[in-house]
């Protein structure tokens, strides 16, 4: 099973961090491999996922969307119905319980859309931990509501004013904090990205999505789905849905953000249009210039606005296990609108990319094919931004 013991997925992954952090990563890896088998830990996590998060999240047959598109039979995995409104809480609960067992009193996190920040702040409140969230000033502007939520939950939101003032820069600053405070702080990385063991650990905590979907699809249709579709920022909601189907004959489609269009150079399509390199502790596909400087990413969806991606997705791309495609801002807005109008569900702009992919390619699916779209989050956080754009056009 991958990753190997150094955290590699083929040529990808690994631990490319300052020496100061190496002992902390080794400690985390050791603690995790012990605690994850601990029956008390598993019981506590399962209990909270059920009663606090509200799992299992429904697998909903989107009959009206299916009819409107005239393509495959579409199911939505409703991560948007989780407490705090996205899949992010699956991971932050797991890491929060782990951090507490490791004796850490403080957690920090980076956030783009603010969903991971809210989910981390929520768990910190629940477990009585101090919590600092790094967020780019551009994202603070576009996700105002989530900033307020984090503050109400007792977290401190630290504005990051470097680079593109988005997720990448927030992650730089979170890593700098961790380098400085590593002895008593746990860094809650929000996706299947970063140095080993994070990609593995976050995959494990998010895999509850795919495990449930498998059972639910069997109950609904008596068989496996044909295709899974999820948006990919760092890749955690996609990996969580995909991973339990790894050995099954099921197509995986990861949808990246094409922003203003791939040709424009202003996009976040790391796997579709990037090159292999090292960022934020792992070897993976990145957006970079010929000299290895990281390029700014662009997307209407702050949670996808990241020039890197989790290393296991790079491995899936290389081995052909998953296909990666890109949907631009305009198309994502269409996805947002059609789900709102046909099903009465406002998706997060991130998740709208996955909806838009199926919308755009509906006719390419065979009759009766079963597709699961991961509805990774709800759109409440995006209503201001979306209404501004729709008024302008």
């Amino acid at each position, binding site marked *: 099973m991958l990753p190997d013991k150094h955290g590699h997925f083929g040529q990808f992954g690994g*631990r*490319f961090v*300052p020496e100061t952090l*190496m002992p902390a990563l080794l400690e985390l890896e050791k603690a995790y491999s012990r605690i994850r088998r601990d029956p008390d830990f598993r019981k506590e996590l399962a209990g909270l996922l059920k009663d606090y998060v509200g799992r299992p999240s429904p697998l909903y047959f989107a009959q009206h969307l299916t009819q409107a598109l005239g393509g495959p039979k579409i199911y939505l995995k409703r991560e948007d119905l989780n407490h705090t409104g996205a899949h992010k809480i699956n991971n932050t609960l797991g890491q929060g319980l782990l951090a507490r067992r490791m004796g850490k009193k403080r957690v920090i996190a980076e956030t783009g859309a603010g969903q991971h920040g809210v989910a981390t702040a929520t768990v910190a409140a629940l477990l009585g931990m101090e919590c600092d969230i790094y967020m780019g000033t551009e994202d603070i502007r576009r996700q105002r509501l989530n900033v307020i939520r984090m503050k109400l939950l007792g977290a401190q939101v630290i504005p990051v004013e470097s680079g593109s003032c988005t997720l990448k820069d927030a992650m730089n600053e979170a*890593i700098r904090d961790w380098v400085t405070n*590593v002895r008593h702080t746990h860094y809650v990385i929000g996706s299947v990205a970063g140095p080993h063991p994070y990609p593995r650990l976050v995959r494990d905590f998010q895999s509850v999505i795919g495990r449930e979907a498998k059972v639910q699809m069997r109950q609904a249709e008596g068989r496996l789905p044909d295709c899974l579709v999820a948006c990919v920022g760092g890749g955690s909601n996609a990996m969580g849905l995909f991973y339990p189907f790894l050995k099954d004959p099921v197509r995986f489609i990861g949808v990246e953000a094409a922003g203003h269009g791939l040709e424009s150079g202003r996009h976040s399509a790391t796997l579709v249009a990037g090159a292999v390199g090292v960022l934020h502790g792992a070897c993976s596909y990145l957006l970079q210039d010929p*000299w*290895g*400087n990281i390029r700014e990413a662009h997307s209407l969806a702050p949670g996808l606005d990241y020039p890197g991606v989790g290393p296991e997705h790079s491995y899936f791309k290389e081995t052909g296990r998953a296909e990666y495609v890109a949907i631009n801002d305009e198309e994502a807005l269409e996805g947002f609108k059609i789900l709102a109008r046909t099903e009465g569900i406002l998706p997060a702009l991130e998740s709208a990319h996955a909806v838009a992919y199926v919308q755009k390619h509906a006719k390419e699916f065979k009759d009766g094919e079963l597709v699961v779209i991961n509805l990774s989050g709800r759109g409440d956080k995006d209503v201001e931004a979306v209404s501004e754009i729709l008024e302008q056009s």
Partner: protein
Amino acid sequence: MKKINAMFKRLAARGEKALIPYITAGDPSLALSRELVLEMAGRGADLIELGIPFSDPLADGPTIQAACQRALKQEVNLPKILDLVRTLRQDTEIPLVLMGYYNPILAYGLDRLARDAAEAGVDGFIIPDLPGEEARDWHRAACDAGLAPIFLAAPTSGPARIRKIGSLTRGFLYYVSVTGITGARAGLPEDLKTALAEVRQLVTCPLAVGFGISTPEQVRDLAPLVDGVVVGSAIVQKIACRTDAAMVKEIGDFIAELKAPLRSGQ
């Protein structure tokens, strides 16, 4: 690699310690970096670290982050830094070490960079986000080309890792004085001297200490415990944005002040 080893040997024979200043290459311009290197070499520097600017320097504080941004605005990149080293080699034999993050090095190509850098006159590399565990290919490429792959140890490392890093590193071991990022600090950790004394017992190679060291008094304090002292942000802060002729001379004066407590008999 040879020049670094020879330098430490020469100083040790005299009971002297090395001053290792850091500047970001191309801050404020490549032409001034050249002047700065020559000035520092003439005023008491024993080895110079040239920073390779990077868009996301995550082990660096605000001072060096800003220097990277200034250098990137000048479109400084690895080939231009190698050119700088080539022209410097017409005028100075001081050991030159490039310090930079792994991605630009990977983008250039490990073997190609090691060859080109050695040919240009570079003596070693410090890559702060490349721990020994991930460094097999780079270690081989650098050593094959005669370059020193210099590794860092940190206060969090613990004796077992420090021993390992000590046997992996070439040229010297770079001990990070603080649990944190680069940047000038008023005070250094209280337990730093004890830590350095312990590291001394664990490794046989020359030992240099850096991160946060900014005054001649701090240098004097640490000198007896190490073979070299690295000063970065304090110098970069003085350069910050200045392009006037007096700046180069001021940096030279600062180097002389920092070096004084490292000379024998001090």
